[in-house]
């Protein structure tokens, strides 16, 4: 039987974490200040020609990511919660260069792509020179049911990955 999984903010749809070899204050700074953001935002080969940040609750940000081929992808967002240097909650959507809302379809994406994403980023001290950063992403629209996933399938996948690779 197929069950519908309700959207539950406690269970993010995308989680990634990474330990950085730097004190927490530094990681937080690199994550939030434009002069640093522009140096790491985007995948390999990309540049971030525009990074505007108004870092306070209710403050807006505007990022531009430029692909090696010269295509620009704009994102506009707003900070919803800030606990220095522990936690940031923000929302983000696609935009044009002026920050006007764009739909994912405007960027050539599937029509059912979420219009807005909710990100929760946490910074945890592992030791004096080690910080664990975790990004939890939720789509604010009901996208979860497209996945029909539950906690069991990841384990199942692991077992099968082993079986498949034999």
């Amino acid at each position, binding site marked *: *039987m*197929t*069950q519908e*999984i309700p959207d539950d903010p406690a269970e993010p749809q*995308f989680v*990634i974490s*990474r330990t*950085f*070899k*730097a004190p927490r204050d*530094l*990681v937080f*700074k*690199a*994550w939030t200040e434009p002069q*640093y953001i522009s*140096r*790491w*935002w*985007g*995948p*390999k080969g*990309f540049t971030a020609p525009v990074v505007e940040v108004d870092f306070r609750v209710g403050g807006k940000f505007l990022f531009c*990511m430029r*692909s*090696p*081929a010269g*295509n620009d*992808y704009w*994102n506009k967002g707003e900070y919803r919660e800030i606990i220095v240097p522990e936690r940031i909650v923000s929302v*983000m959507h*696609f935009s044009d260069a002026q920050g006007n809302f764009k739909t*994912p379809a405007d*960027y*050539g*994406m*599937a029509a*059912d*792509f*979420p219009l807005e*994403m909710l990100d929760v980023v946490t910074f945890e001290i592992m030791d004096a020179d080690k910080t664990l950063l975790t*990004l939890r*992403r939720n789509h604010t629209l009901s996208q979860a049911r*497209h*996945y*029909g*996933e*539950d906690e*069991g*399938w990841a384990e*199942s*996948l692991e*077992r*099968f*990955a082993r*079986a*498949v690779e034999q």
Partner: protein
Amino acid sequence: MHLNQRQAATSSLCGPTILVSALTFLSNIYNYMVVNKINLTLTALADPTRRAILDRLALGPASVNELARPFKLTQQAVSKHLDYLHRAQLINKRRDGRQQFCTLNPQPFRDVIGWAEQCCRAWEESFERLDVVLEDMKRKDKKK
């Protein structure tokens, strides 16, 4: 036949790789391009009975009777699960006389694994760049 369809679908994805890698970073767009194909896989995997059936088939082919045995289910109910798995292309069916045999088709798992890896890769690249920025910041901090 299923395999050919799937291969055709996969190769049509290779073109916009650069675009995909850009948008993944922002929004895991790759999910959405591939997700149409893997939706069915994940939905099929969301059910514990179907996963148990796949676990059994990972050991080798089995008849419908054999697959039904460990579960307190009617053969009809098991057949429904098998239909679901077949539609998701996770299993192949083969008739041998009066018996129907099922085998595992691993390709959809590879697609899901590929998708999961792609999801993380763009962030990993970004995090590697952040590593460099942090090293730089640490050096400058020490000079002060």
